Every structure is written in structure tokens, then in C-alpha cells.
């Protein structure tokens, strides 16, 4: 596999109003890899994803698949192939599961391809097929997380942004979600940027990892090495 850079951020800062939450960070995402951003609550992980999706004010440069994202709206970035599974999963809770998946394919027009992809998603998540015509809001948190990942897959994304996929889930469900993410990585080569507080789960899946603290990157490297280093684990990851 070629190690092509899919996304690179340079001097990326982000703001909520006048409050600066990212302080000029640099990072790269390599195609086909899983990149993890780890850090405590409020470190700037979610803000990084929101910055990439154009949901908050930013300065600095982001290059994605060979073109600058500056000035592009959230919906344009989605159409370019950035599938953001947001905090809280962004479920359309009063619509059916199938409609939620259809919405993921909203910027595509290949009907046959969409139908095939819905089948593919049901293949990964059999529970979604069982409940295809029920309201999405009636599902459990874990099932909604799966639906959100399925919806993102329907976009045929070049890059998936996953915001705490383990958040609020029972340990067994966390394992289930991560097993599926691993299959997506290995079988389909989906590139992912994964933001997590659950460092152990994320490091087991990721290729690269960045540690982020109060809006700055304090360390980066191969996920394996970071996971092995006891000092880093104690100091930053708390396990």
C-alpha cells in the first residue's frame, strides 16, 4: 500500500467566538490508516473534528485529497468525501433506520449503488436490517452508534471522522463497535480519524496517534509505540 497523505493540517487554529480552542496544530492523515487523537475531556479533540468539517471558525491550512478546504462549507466538505460521525451520533431520531441510511447517500445519484451499499451496511450491522422500518430514536445507544457509522459508510467516504464511538456504551458494545471498525479498516481500507477518551480501545486499532492537551499536540507517533510506553500512558492516558 502506498503511504499517500490524505489530509494535512498546518498551523490549524479553531475558535468558538473569541475563545481559541486549537493553537496552531500540525498533523497528517495517511490514506488507508486509522489515526487516533487522544486526550482528556476539553483537550480539543472534538474541536479538531469540527474544524475539519468546517463547523467552527478556523485559521491555518487544511489540504484534503489534494485540495485546500479553506472557504468550503460543511456540506461541500461532506460531498468531497469527509464523513463526520459527530458527538451524540447525529441520528435523525424520528426517521426510520432505512431513511437514515438513505440520507447518508444524499449527495450520490447512483440508485443501484445506493441500494447495494444499504445491503452492505446491513451485512456489517444485521441489527439494523431487523429494525429497518422502525424509528431510529427507539434504538439503544450502541445501535445508534452503528447506525451513525452505517450512515457515514453510505457516503462512500474518503475519510471518516469518528467522535468518541465508545462514548456511553457498555464494554461489550464498545468491543462490538471496535470489531466492526477494524473490519472496515482491514476489508475496505477506509481511512479514519478517531477521537477517543478510551485510549486503550483506540490505540489497539490505530496506526498513528496524536496526544492532544489544551488545544496543542504534545506527542505523536506510531500507535503501537505510544501504547507500549508506560510513562506516556501514565502521564497522558490515565491507564
Amino acid at each position, binding site marked *: 500500500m502506498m503511504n499517500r497523505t490524505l489530509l494535512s493540517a498546518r498551523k490549524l487554529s479553531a475558535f468558538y467566538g473569541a475563545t481559541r480552542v486549537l493553537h496552531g496544530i500540525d498533523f497528517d492523515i495517511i490514506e488507508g490508516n486509522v489515526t487516533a487523537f487522544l486526550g482528556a475531556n476539553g483537550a480539543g479533540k472534538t474541536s479538531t473534528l469540527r474544524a475539519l*468539517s468546517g463547523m467552527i471558525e478556523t485559521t491555518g491550512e487544511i489540504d484534503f485529497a489534494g485540495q485546500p478546504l479553506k472557504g468550503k462549507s460543511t456540506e461541500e466538505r*461532506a460531498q468531497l468525501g469527509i464523513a463526520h460521525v*459527530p458527538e451524540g451520533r447525529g*441520528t435523525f431520531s424520528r*426517521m426510520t433506520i432505512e431513511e437514515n441510511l*438513505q440520507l447518508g447517500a*444524499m449527495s450520490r445519484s447512483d440508485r443501484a449503488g445506493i441500494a447495494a451499499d444499504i445491503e452492505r451496511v446491513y451485512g456489517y450491522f444485521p441489527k439494523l436490517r431487523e429494525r429497518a422500518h422502525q424509528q431510529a430514536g427507539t434504538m439503544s445507544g450502541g445501535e445508534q452508534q452503528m447506525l451513525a457509522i452505517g450512515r457515514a459508510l453510505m457516503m462512500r467516504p474518503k475519510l471518516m471522522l469518528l467522535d468518541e464511538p465508545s462514548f456511553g456504551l457498555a464494554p461489550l458494545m464498545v468491543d462490538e463497535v471496535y470489531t466492526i471498525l477494524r473490519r472496515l479498516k482491514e476489508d475496505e481500507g477506509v481511512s479514519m480519524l478517531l477521537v477517543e477518551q478510551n485510549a486503550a480501545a483506540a490505540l489497539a486499532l490505530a496506526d498513528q496517534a496524536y496526544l492532544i492537551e489544551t488545544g496543542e499536540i504534545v506527542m505523536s507517533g506510531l500507535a503501537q509505540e505510544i501504547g507500549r510506553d508506560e510513562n506516556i500512558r501514565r502521564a497522558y492516558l490515565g491507564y
Partner: protein
Amino acid sequence: MQLVLSQILAGLSTGGIYACMALAIVMIYQAIDHLNFAQGEMAMFSTFIAWQLLHWGLPYWPTFFLTIAISFVGGVLIERIIFKPLKNAPILSHIVVFIALFAILNSGAGFIWDFNIKSFPTPFGTTPLFGSLISSHDAGMISVTIIVLILLYAFFRYTRVGLAMRATAANPESARLVGIRVGWMIALGWGMAAAIGAIAGMMIAPVVFLEPNMMVSILLYGFAGAVVGGLTSPLGAVIGGFAVGVIENLSGFIPDVGNELKLTIALALIVAVLTIRPQGLFGRVIVTRV
């Protein structure tokens, strides 16, 4: 009995118009979270456009559809030019702009077409049907309303654009993240609301006569219908609109109420629903986390 039945049918026919106005209000409310006070004036202006086209000699049905198209474009333009820049403005700015739009359309229509009452034709005639149970215009009005509602239901239920519009109303942030052009969906909602209003205006104009203030009380009934059904529920708004029409007509039977107090009943209904069940009969409670 005959009289009651005929009053109920008459109530359903005007109720259909209230249902259309209520639906137009709910569509815009879902898109931008504000009540469009100018919805009635937009409908009135559309009806004047229809009147002008008829006056120039265009036959009724081409006029009908051309007016719907013009109103749709007008609605989209109002959103793009006036409301898009106001997206993040406080609620008071919206209210002021709605009042301005109301005044501009109202006096604009008066300026162009004057304030004299004009008659507006009905394509259905006014012959009594079923042993004078209902007039043919009332029957036509109910039919048109039902066709419009079925088309709208099919649009929102079975088309991709309809799905995208529902997603935009339900969760704009998530809609953006899947690549839906939220701004255009909102503009489309305005266009459709304007088009629905135009149909309502053209249908009710033969009954109330055409003049710049013709929609004021009708919009009030539309608001009542929307509030009764629930501002978050398009289906509720439609049912509410029909219900208000029937209640309005039947209230004529209550001694000492008569026609003069009909409007009072609509307002009393709004107050009663807002007091007892603020989310309306079919609406849902919106929980805001702070």
C-alpha cells in the same frame, strides 16, 4: 340534521384553506423556527397576481398553475434575499422583518390594484350539490385541498428531496454532515409554503372577495389550526386547520355567538391550547439542553 351536516361540510371546505395556511406556517416554522406573520399577505399578493393574469385574458387553469409557479419563485427569492442574511439574527429582528414584509405586501397590493373589493372567479361554479348540502365551489375547494395534501405527503414521504427537507428540519447540523445543502432546502421550503398559500388564496378569494386585507382573518384561523395541531407536526396542522373550520361554522349555532364572535373563538382556541397543551394536540415537547 341536514343543516348541521351542511354546516360541517362548509366548515370542512373553509377548514381546508385554514389547513393549507397552517401547513405553510408549519413548513416555515420547521425550517427557521419563526412564525411567518406575512404568510397571509404573500397568499393575498399571489391571488392578486392571478387576478391580473385573468384580467389580461388568460384562462383559469393556466392562470392557476402559472400563479403557483410565480409564487414558488417569489417565496424562494424572499428567503434568499431577506431571510438568509438574517439567519443568526435575534428573534426581534425576525419579527420586525415579518411585519415589514406584511406591510409592504399589503400596501403594495393596495397601491398596484387599489383597495376596492374585486370578485374572483371559481372554476367550479356555485351550483348546489346533493340536495343543496354543499355548493360546487365548496366541494371543489375540498377536492383541491385534498389533492394538494396528498401530493405534499407523497413528496415528503417518497422523494429524495422531500427526505432531505425533512432531515434539514429535524437536524440541520446532521443534514450538513451528510452533504445536504441546508440553505437551499430552507429556500425550497419557503417556495413551497408560498405556493401552498397561493392555492389557498385562489380558492378562498371567490368566497371572501379579493382585497388587500382578505387574508388577515384567514391567517388567524390558520395560526389557530397550526397551534391546535402543534407547530412541530405538519399532519397536526392539517387536522387542526380542518377542525378550526368546522368549529368556526358550528359555533354559529351557539345562541348569542353568531357570526360576529367567530374570530373570537379562533383566538380563544389559541389561548386555550397554549395554556393547556402548549405543544398542540399532535406536536411534541421540545427539550432544550442548556
